[in-house]
């Protein structure tokens, strides 16, 4: 049974046996979003970006400040610019090499949203709305309350006398269990594009389900991220302190459940010097403002932390840790990428030369967060890292900032069809 939490109009929870009625409703209501012009949509999203910080419910959501910043007009316009040569193509014919090109919405976009970042669904949805698509979002149950409160703010946003409800008129928020394969298949068959965010198992299960021949898949699958710091930065105590504080903010976001979360930090220094870096990280963990203190942990996560701490202790490896299972810093000089423990656990590794990390790179590396004094060295190394498949290289503190391209993809351009008209000069 499909649990519907938002049907384009109401937030009353109801059930639907299949997608027949949902599909019919979308066909009818779709005209509303098609009538909106790009500037109005950008304006509505911009208004939403301000309102979520004023709303007493949404302002408490983890990552809301970043979502607000991301949804601002200036950022949305820069996202459009990076995807399209001229945004005119999104509204009207645009002449290029003797052809008239126009970007048209794909149609119905199915979003399979992972549960690791509660605001993830919004990033996916807003880009799809920007391209005037209809949307069905399958959201994990634990993210539903967050998504509902955010969509309520979007529905009530206004720009130029236009209400956000027009923007959301053909958007559905639903849930069904992963065991309900028939429902999943039905949704899949309805989509003109499928955006799938998730782990290996989820990506495989959903991408294997039947789809239209014309359906485009946009997969954001399992990825791994880590950080690096060059020797000049290690030796500059002021910069080191500042950067380790930034690293800690990258670590605490989503309790390291994101593909952008640093799990390992590789330092260009000797093994004894690692302790200096570890102490800075410890200081930052201890000085976190009260609102960022860990208040909960799953037993599984706690058990993983206890085990890795014991392993390091038995082997006589260095470690800094909180009293309970709050944070853990594990030190060694074995240059490798470790299986994530998450929940504020960072592996700290020393290496003589950061170019040695090239051998660790696979196409599964999403983000590398850096702290470099020598920017030329950074650019040289980055060229090789990008060539090896690293999607993003950003300064520490920005690892979890959602941006385009993401996983090497320009999402907006994937959510439209480039259609054309060639006007014949002959009579």
């Amino acid at each position, binding site marked *: 049974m499909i649990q519907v939490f938002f049907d384009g109009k109401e937030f009353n929870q109801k059930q639907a046996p299949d997608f027949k009625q949902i599909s019919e409703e979308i066909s009818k209501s779709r005209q509303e979003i098609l009538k909106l012009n790009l500037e109005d949509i950008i304006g509505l999203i911009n208004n939403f970006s301000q309102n979520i910080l004023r709303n007493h419910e949404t302002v408490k959501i983890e990552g809301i400040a970043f979502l607000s910043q991301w949804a601002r007009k200036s950022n949305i316009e820069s996202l459009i610019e990076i995807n399209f040569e001229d945004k005119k193509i999104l509204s009207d014919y645009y002449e290029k090499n003797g052809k008239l090109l126009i970007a048209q919405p794909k149609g119905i976009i199915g979003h399979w949203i992972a549960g690791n970042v509660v605001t993830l669904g919004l990033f996916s949805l807003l880009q799809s709305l920007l391209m005037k698509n209809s949307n069905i979002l399958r959201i994990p149950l634990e993210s539903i309350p967050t998504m509902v409160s955010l969509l309520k703010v979007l529905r009530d946003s206004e720009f130029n006398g236009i209400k956000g409800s027009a923007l959301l008129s053909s958007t559905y928020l639903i849930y069904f269990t992963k065991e309900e394969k028939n429902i999943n298949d039905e949704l899949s068959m309805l989509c003109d594009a499928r955006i799938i965010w998730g782990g290996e198992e989820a990506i495989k299960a959903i991408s294997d389900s039947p789809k239209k021949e014309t359906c485009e898949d946009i997969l954001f699958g399992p990825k791994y991220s880590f950080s690096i710091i060059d020797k000049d930065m290690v030796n500059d105590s002021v910069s080191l302190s500042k950067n380790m504080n930034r690293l800690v903010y990258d670590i605490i976001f989503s309790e390291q459940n994101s593909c952008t979360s640093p799990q390992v930090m590789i330092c260009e220094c000797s093994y004894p010097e690692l302790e200096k870096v570890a102490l800075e990280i410890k200081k930052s963990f201890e000085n976190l403002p009260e609102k960022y203190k860990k208040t909960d*942990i799953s037993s599984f996560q706690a058990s993983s932390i*206890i085990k890795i701490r014991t392993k390091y202790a038995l082997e*006589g490896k260095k470690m800094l840790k909180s009293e309970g299972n709050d944070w853990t810093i594990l030190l060694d000089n074995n240059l490798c990428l470790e299986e994530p423990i998450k929940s504020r656990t960072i592996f700290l590794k020393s290496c003589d030369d950061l170019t040695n990390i090239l051998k660790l790179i696979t196409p599964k590396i999403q983000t590398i967060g850096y702290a470099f004094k020598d920017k030329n060295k950074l650019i040289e190394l980055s060229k090789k890292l990008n060539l090896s498949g690293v999607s993003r290289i950003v300064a520490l503190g920005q690892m979890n900032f959602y941006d385009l391209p993401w996983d090497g993809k320009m999402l907006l351009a994937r959510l439209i069809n480039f259609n054309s008209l060639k006007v014949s000069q002959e009579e």
Partner: protein
Amino acid sequence: MDKDEKINELITKDQFTLSAEDKEKQLFPIILEQLKNQTNNNYLKNFYESIFPIQNIKRLSDIPPIPVSMFKNYELRLCPESEVVRVLTSSGTTAQMKSKIFLDKKTAFRQTKALMNILKSHLGNQRKPMVIIDTEKVNMPGNDSISARGAAIRGLLTFAQETVYILDGTDPDLKLNLDKLIGFLEKYKDQEIVFFGFTYIIWEFFYKQLLSLGKSFKLKAKVIHSGGWKKLESKKVSKEIFNKNVSEIIGNSSEDIHDMYGMVEQVGVVFIDCEHGNKHVPNFADVIIRDPLTMEEVNIGKQGIIEIISVLPESYPGQATITEDLGLLMGIDDCKCGRKGKYFRFLSRIKESETRGCGDTFSGRRE
């Protein structure tokens, strides 16, 4: 009294008589002495120095527990190799590696004696005719190593007047030998019988086979089962369903079906449900239910990770082991059954959260 004499007294006297406060007073000095002896092992020396130095330990809950999974990865032996009389191994059904627990004569003796005394509290002083719902092969080690299933059966055998194994075949094709069972029950028709087996095996190869044969009994009997609920959970068989259905087949009361919680890393310390469904801790051991975030002991009514404290082992570091199980602290010193000390309930194995995302795992993803 020296340490060994104190331990011996704790094991041999009547169990479940110490209040939580008295237990702390009696166990702490013994365990502290045992911990100091462990630092001859380099792994453990490192461990205590790094996690919580022994000189700072002021109470039982200060002792840094060793996760049971570490016995899979490290050879944590505290006696000379020549003194090892038996190596216990975990079942290893869900993990590729098995725990290896090294027993010397002293530890093995204590464990046997301790188990006997716990069972006495639940089964009475007399040895009883015992039906083992398993195959005899499980208790026939090829060498000095023995599985957890075999070790549990072996532990109970010391309490048996006579024993019969009622399953034939080899895992997973076990078959009930009904004639053998009926013959044994006939022989001891006037006595109380004790049935023992692993929970899943009792359900699958005893209860279901008797059910399909349309056979049931009317017995004066107690059933003790262990091994956990993992396999039955997937079949939607709860403890209540298990107790009801098995007792209907045997013809006793569901109060006579006792779940026994224990592990190969803590042989000798088993927790059997009392008539009020609570698990009690014997005098020579303790349980600490820890809050997953703070690692502090939880208050009554709260759940957490189960840790077991024991004075029994000296050939391996089992003084404080933290399990991968969740428990609920039910109370202290005041269970209606009259047993003293802390009492708790086993809730489940610790499971991985289903909230997974794009930052899942690294292994298996390298191309």
